[in-house]
């Protein structure tokens, strides 16, 4: 039928582009990731090399910490903002979401402005206590950077979900005697759970794969993306870089897939 041929024609560009530039390269990446330079299997070497394991551990840790702190802060702020109306609210919300579009390098720069050698916090603490507080160039600085671009994302999701909450549910809980904290714990948080789960997973995956922030803050930061980068560009160790990338890719994909399953299922049950 003409319609089916037409459809096939319309989707052809997509198929060609995605196959040529995504599927095939990824397949080749996977294929090339096994044979290590030293003759063994790269994945086995990864497990055997403390440096790689440490970097993986550090990356997981900072991503997990980012996610937890982001969820807590964004939920508190999001609930408050969702329920209040004040002049300038729209402006505030707009500004709070700008960091979503900043590349990691810019966020790194902002962290330096805040907590670097000539940073604002440094000046303030020097004036107040005589000691200059500088933490931009360490894992702490990285964490702060990750928080910077994670909080807006989760915040928006929380506000959107909170606005969909049925106020009658909270009134019903109160009519049965529940005080504000009970209402939060028993009614509000369970209702927000799918949104929190999904956006939390997203924050985790983004933090895992981030390189720009670490790049700008440089020196003593050894997260997995940086290791991959050095293996590839400085050591020309393509197979290892590929293997580490596959590991990283699998982790982020898995986390997102699990979260999608879990939040999808929860949404269905919540009716």
């Amino acid at each position, binding site marked *: 039928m*003409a319609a089916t041929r037409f*459809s096939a024609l*319309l*989707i052809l*560009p*997509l198929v060609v*582009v*995605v196959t040529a*530039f*995504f*599927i095939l*390269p*990824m397949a*080749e*990446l996977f294929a090339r990731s096994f044979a290590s330079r030293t003759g063994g299997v790269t994945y086995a070497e990864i497990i055997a090399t403390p440096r790689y394991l440490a970097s993986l551990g550090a990356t997981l840790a900072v991503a997990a910490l980012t996610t937890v702190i982001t969820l807590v*802060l964004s939920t508190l*702020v999001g609930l*408050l903002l969702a329920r209040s109306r004040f002049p300038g609210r729209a402006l505030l919300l*707009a*500004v*709070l*979401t*700008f*960091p979503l*579009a900043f*590349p*990691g*390098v810019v966020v790194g*720069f*902002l*962290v330096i*402005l*805040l907590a670097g050698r000539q940073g604002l916090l440094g000046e303030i603490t020097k004036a107040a206590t005589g000691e200059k507080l500088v933490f931009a160039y360490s894992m702490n600085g990285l964490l702060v950077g*990750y928080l*910077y671009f994670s909080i807006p*994302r989760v915040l928006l*999701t929380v506000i959107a979900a909170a606005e969909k909450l049925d106020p009658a549910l909270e009134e019903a809980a109160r009519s049965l005697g529940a005080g504000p904290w009970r209402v939060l714990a028993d009614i509000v948080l369970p209702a927000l759970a*799918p*949104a929190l789960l*999904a956006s939390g997973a*997203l924050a985790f995956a*983004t933090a895992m*794969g*981030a*390189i*720009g*922030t670490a*790049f*700008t803050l440089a020196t003593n930061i050894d997260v997995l993306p940086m290791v991959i*980068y050095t293996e*590839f560009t400085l050591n020309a160790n393509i197979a290892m*870089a590929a293997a580490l*990338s596959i590991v990283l*890719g699998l982790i*982020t*994909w898995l986390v*997102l*897939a699990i979260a*999608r399953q879990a*939040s999808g299922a929860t949404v269905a049950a919540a009716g």
Partner: protein
Amino acid sequence: MIVTLLVTAFLVVPMLLSLMAGVTANYFQGIVRSGVTLQWVGEVWTLYADTILLSLQIAIATLAATLVIGVPAAYVLNRQPSRISRAIEEIVTLPLAIPGLAIALALLISYGSAGEFRKSWAFILVGHVLYTLPFMMRAVMAVLAAVDARTLEEGAASLGAGPLQRFCHVILPNVASGMLAGSLMVVTLSIGEFNLTWMLHTPLTKTLPVGLADSYASMRLEIASAYTLVFFVMIIPLLVGLQLFASLLGGATPPTSTQDRKGAPT
């Protein structure tokens, strides 16, 4: 609440600092003592004009590519929902679930030796298209579903319109809002893309974010800030546009959806 104020300050203050630093004559002396100046912005233009222009060029090319590739594909996927369609959608969205680093690596391994292509800005374009295509397609598919495109098509077919006519006369006009939202999204993401671009670039094909990374490493604070200021000036109107659009539409589009969608690469 205190938490809200602190978090707000945390997010807003650095942006303001950076804006301010970009126009301060001397950051160490502060803006009050050394005065406001546009000299740094001028220097940025001298040093980095090519990166700014290249970023714009790539963003527009990415937009054109995602429109041409994504809109018809979105139409087909919406029209024929099936397991294959869902699989295709999953694959198209995969670049969002995997770190840009990995994708860039894959591209380098596969096409690294393809001389001319590898050295041109088209190489970067490919990465940008892979990354932004899901957003364009999602925006368009959302609108297709909202206007019940299939029924509209049946109506047109009943009046005698053939496939191409239906696509041009009925589908395209009705997905205009989706295309617009998707376009804003694609351009914003492309201008700010770093993870992929960093791996794929050459000294001759540097985009704005790549230039920023350079300047943070090697330039004085004022220039780096001015450069960041230029970036803000480019990106903030787009962001505002996105938000206005979202509120007009009732929120079908920006990266607030809880699906596996990442915002800017980091």
